[in-house]
């Protein structure tokens, strides 16, 4: 390939107060290329992307050119004018606005005479853009109320929609973290068609199989520095992991020893129903890990919150011998349930608070004596948990907002693992977490189960379900359509069951 690169990054550095996030990174991306950008949590991927997007102003000496023209830093409009299009890790949508308005944030409204917005045309355009991605939903709902994957679709549609300049580079920061495999495949098809139109694509993911399936070349970052850029062809998954973490991992995902000692039923659910879920029965024993899979719209997205009482539901949920009324998460917590929700920004993270507060928020008075907090003791306990989950950079007094996405997720996990709940509900527990940390988190979930917790894992990552669970229930149309046990527990089987049933019922 001797094409001229459309995006040239030279000596890109970014220093945050007290921390260097990027150091002299060079990057060239050619038109029609799909480039993967990989590395451990906190290695600087999102920082690089935000620097390109004009959110972060890079250090002096950094240079970026797009199609030969230098890019002005710290200015989102100039990035857009240069033809850079972004889907950020946290999507960057306005929750209170609907899909049409969110799309317009990218390209502006189309106006007729008198400067009035042509609503009908705007809506048609939004619907069309989403249909191209394979989504069809009520576009006048505020996006805050949409499923995670629908929201991703809105963000992708916005990036691809017609702006005042043609797109040159499309940057996707972990767009698949919340997407079930089938929907990710649709996204990939679209990405390929964008690539075929001559646009360069930068794709960030912690799912290495996606990197190999989709990308031509891969750039590896480690601790803010460029490690290498290589064609994906000829590279194996373990080679890539080695490049990312700097050493060879013999086996980073070892299945747990079969947990033999299952106790009494701790979580018992009868007739759980929401707008989508239709009467789910479930019992989970102490020490058992039960998984849930399903495509978007199957009820999978609602399950964890409904169990916890975070959204309206009917049916009876009992923990031990106590019934948890609906819409009372406080009682759920008090009776020993813990929830790591999906979408940490909306549901779990206190971005302005420090890590200690983020961890102790589920048990704010645990270390208090005579009504007064004992911060010192609490701090060392929290520090131990952050260490255990390998949160980097650690430091209990750091603001949550200065952590990378994957590390924020680990902090939320620490919050609940630390409480040692009787019932642990995990919704996309390792969203945005890198391969190494994922193995550690899986080990901690095993440990929680071994200590007697009843664990429910809801995930779009079917490898994760196969790794963690003794039993996986597959949802479609709000009902359990398949139950897979030990021998059948392979990612492919789960995917086939989740998609297969839908195909059958649709035809």
């Amino acid at each position: 390939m001797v094409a001229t690169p459309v995006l040239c990054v030279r000596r890109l550095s970014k220093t945050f107060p007290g921390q260097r996030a990027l150091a002299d990174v060079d990057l060239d991306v050619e038109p029609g290329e799909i480039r993967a950008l990989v590395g451990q949590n906190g290695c600087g991927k999102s920082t690089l992307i935000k620097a390109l997007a004009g959110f972060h102003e890079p250090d002096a000496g950094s240079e970026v050119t797009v199609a030969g023209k230098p890019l002005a830093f710290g200015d989102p409009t100039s990035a857009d004018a240069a033809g850079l299009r972004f889907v950020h890790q946290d999507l960057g949508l306005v929750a209170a606005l609907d899909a049409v308005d969110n799309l317009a944030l990218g390209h502006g409204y189309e106006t007729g005479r008198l400067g009035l917005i042509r609503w009908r045309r705007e809506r048609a355009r939004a619907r069309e853009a989403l249909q191209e991605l394979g989504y069809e939903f009520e576009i006048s709902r505020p996006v805050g109320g949409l499923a995670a994957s629908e929201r991703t679709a809105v963000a992708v549609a916005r990036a691809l929609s017609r702006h005042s300049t043609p797109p040159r580079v499309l940057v996707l920061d972990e767009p698949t973290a919340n997407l079930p495999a089938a929907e990710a495949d649709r996204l990939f098809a679209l990405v390929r068609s964008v690539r075929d139109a001559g646009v360069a694509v930068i794709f960030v993911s912690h799912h290495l199989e996606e990197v190999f399936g989709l990308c031509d070349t891969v750039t590896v970052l480690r601790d803010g520095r460029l490690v290498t850029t290589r064609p994906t062809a000829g590279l194996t998954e373990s080679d890539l992991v080695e490049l990312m973490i700097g050493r060879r991992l013999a086996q980073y995902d070892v299945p747990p020893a079969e947990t033999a000692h299952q106790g009494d039923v701790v979580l018992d659910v009868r007739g759980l129903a929401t707008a989508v879920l239709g009467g789910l029965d479930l019992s989970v024993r102490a020490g058992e890990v039960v998984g849930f899979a399903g495509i978007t719209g199957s009820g999978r997205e609602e399950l964890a919150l409904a169990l916890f009482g975070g959204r309206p539901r009917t049916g009876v949920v009992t923990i031990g011998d106590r019934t948890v009324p609906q819409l009372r998460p406080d009682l759920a917590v008090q009776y020993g349930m813990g929830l790591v929700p999906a979408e940490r920004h909306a549901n779990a993270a206190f971005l302005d608070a420090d890590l200690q507060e983020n961890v102790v928020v589920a048990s704010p008075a645990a270390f208090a004596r005579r009504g007064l907090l004992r911060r010192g003791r609490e701090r060392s306990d929290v520090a131990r948990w952050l260490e255990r989950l390998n949160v980097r950079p650690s430091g209990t007094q750091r603001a949550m907002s200065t952590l990378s996405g994957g590390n924020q997720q680990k902090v939320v996990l620490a919050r609940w693992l630390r409480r040692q709940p009787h019932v642990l509900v995990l919704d996309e527990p390792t969203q945005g977490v890198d391969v190494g940390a994922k193995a550690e988190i899986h080990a901690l979930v095993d440990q929680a189960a071994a200590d007697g917790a009843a664990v429910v894992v809801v995930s779009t990552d079917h490898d994760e379900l196969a790794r963690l669970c003794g039993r996986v229930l597959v949802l479609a149309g709000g009902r359990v359509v398949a139950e897979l046990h030990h021998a059948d527990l392979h990612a492919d089987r789960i995917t086939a069951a989740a998609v297969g049933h839908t195909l059958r019922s649709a035809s």
Partner: protein
Amino acid sequence: MTTEAAEPANAAADVLVTEAESAEPDRATSDVVSVEPDRATLTRRLPRLNLGLDRFSGLYVWTLIILVFGIWLPDTFLTSYNFQIIAGDQAITAMLALGLIIPLAAGVFDLSCAATLGFAVTVVTWLLKEGFNPVLAILITLACGAFIGFVNGLVVVRLNVDSFIGTLGMSSILAAGAYWVTNGEQIVNTFSKSFLDAGSTRLWGVSLPFYYMLLLAAILYVIVDHTPVGRYLYAAGGNPQAARLAGMRVGRVVWGSLITSATLAALTGVILAAKLGSASQDVGPPYLLQAFSAVFLGSTQIKAGRMNVLGTLVAIYLLATGVKGLQLGGSPSYVNSLFNGLALIIAVALAARTYRRK
């Protein structure tokens, strides 16, 4: 930290941690462009000079103001009498602002606090005029305050009215209430001597309300900074949905914060009544802007990014010192408002700038 049941995975994970952090040169990365030094070394090289110019800027500015006016007006400004006056004069504003911290930390506005203050002044005065026992009159007034807060909470939490609107409405209702109690006239000469003394006696040259304010500040400081209550407030204010899913009853927290601020506003009203010795229906509203300015300005100080007790006190006395200096220097009275407004906007803008740089 590892566990028996999950041995293999954890063993692998452990190696991963230790080795990734060691400075061992990599085998697999022959085309590496110098991966070391690692992050730790990079961090160490950075300058660490931090005078706290952002979160202590208020203290620096305060010092500067004192210096400037001290040099300009050594005879009138730089006297203990002057500082005693400043301390005493601001006690009411400070108490109101302190109470206001609570709902603002929990993420809701209480725009009715100044009206509650004014209403309480008229109520306690009227009760005393009607011959109630002072202790009973004070308790009734505080109960009125708590009730106002309760209704605010009902409107905001149960009826889901935005707090800005709900408390704005309440504030108008209370203005009507104050008028109704006073009949639009001033109520005078209703207080016993001991009641008046409680508002105007001086201790070390400063009138008593200043010490009430200090006591309140100390109590609130302990509650907000050293008990779980502060955590509930900041969590509810930081991300209500996440707080709810962490097992907090956010509605209760918000409701409680509104009851607290209204009760404290009523308490402040009682003290103001003792200080003034009379009541008219329009004493409350002028305090609103000052109290809000102080809390917002205070949220850029000491514990930057959060409404907090010490920052609020710094803000109040910083503004008051500046205004007093200008007055003594002979500035016309409208300069007060000008100074307050400019100081607020500039300070908050500076704070926003330092955040953005982070």
